[in-house]
């Protein structure tokens, strides 16, 4: 991999710590949720890209690659499959569902899920 997907996790981490301390990111109150949603989305992609690489599916470019990765993960690490599935749900909510509000707690919980999935994937 030329690009390290952990950089996406680091971006989310930076967003969450900045939101908690109100530093670093020039925050306008109305943009706070956009940062939160951005962080959640990047967290899914960090975990997904690491999983895709682990499963040697980097050259698979069809849009159903997300389903393929999660299905294949079910056979080698069902715990990571459960957590990545939930992270995808959060990501879809972050990127598409603008009716429901997302808060810093959604970002922190997504961060906890992503950290756990990434740790599992990198360990095995």
């Amino acid at each position, binding site marked *: 991999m030329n690009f390290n997907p952990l950089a996406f996790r680091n971006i989310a981490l930076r967003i969450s710590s900045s939101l908690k301390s109100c530093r670093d990111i020039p925050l306008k109150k109305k943009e706070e949720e956009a940062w939160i949603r951005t962080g959640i989305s990047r967290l899914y992609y960090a975990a997904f890209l690491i999983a895709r690489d682990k499963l040697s599916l980097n050259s698979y470019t069809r849009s*159903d690659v997300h389903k393929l990765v999660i299905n294949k993960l*079910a*056979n080698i690490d*069902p*715990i990571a499959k459960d957590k990545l599935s939930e992270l995808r749900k959060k990501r879809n909510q972050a990127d598409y569902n603008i009716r429901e509000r997302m808060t810093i707690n959604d970002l922190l919980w997504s961060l*906890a899920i992503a950290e*756990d999935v990434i740790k599992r994937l990198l360990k095995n």
Partner: protein
Amino acid sequence: MSTPKVEFAEGYYEVFGIPKINALRESTSSTFLELMKINIYPTDKYLEKFYSRLREISEALGVKPHLIAQLETPLKKALRRLFSSFPRSKIDLNVDIVEDIEVQNWKLLRIAFVVESSDYEKLQEVWTSVSRIFAEETPKELLNKYYVAIEPGELS
């Protein structure tokens, strides 16, 4: 001091039993609410409702009923694990179908345990063991049809 007001979710059972509950309800103990939180468990009646909803939803997903029935044992084991780890927390069960917005025809049954806790580290740890219970106890052909999640519930 007024008696703390407690509302019981339908289908929950109070281990203390009704007379004890009523006695506590009349008391002015500040620990009343805490006592109630420790002692609410989903009953068989509550679980039956949940199973029936699970079967209904699974049929919509095209999962055979005998496969769905095999989720009941891990579900009970998972609840025991959750209640031993979070004895003071309210735990709810949700089941729904998650349909992916970007991938056509990709639907998953989602079984979620909503735990009234904000201890994310512990929730992750328990989620890992709950997922393991399900993975060990369900047939392989079901693994791609459902997933198990834990959600931190809102703390009042």
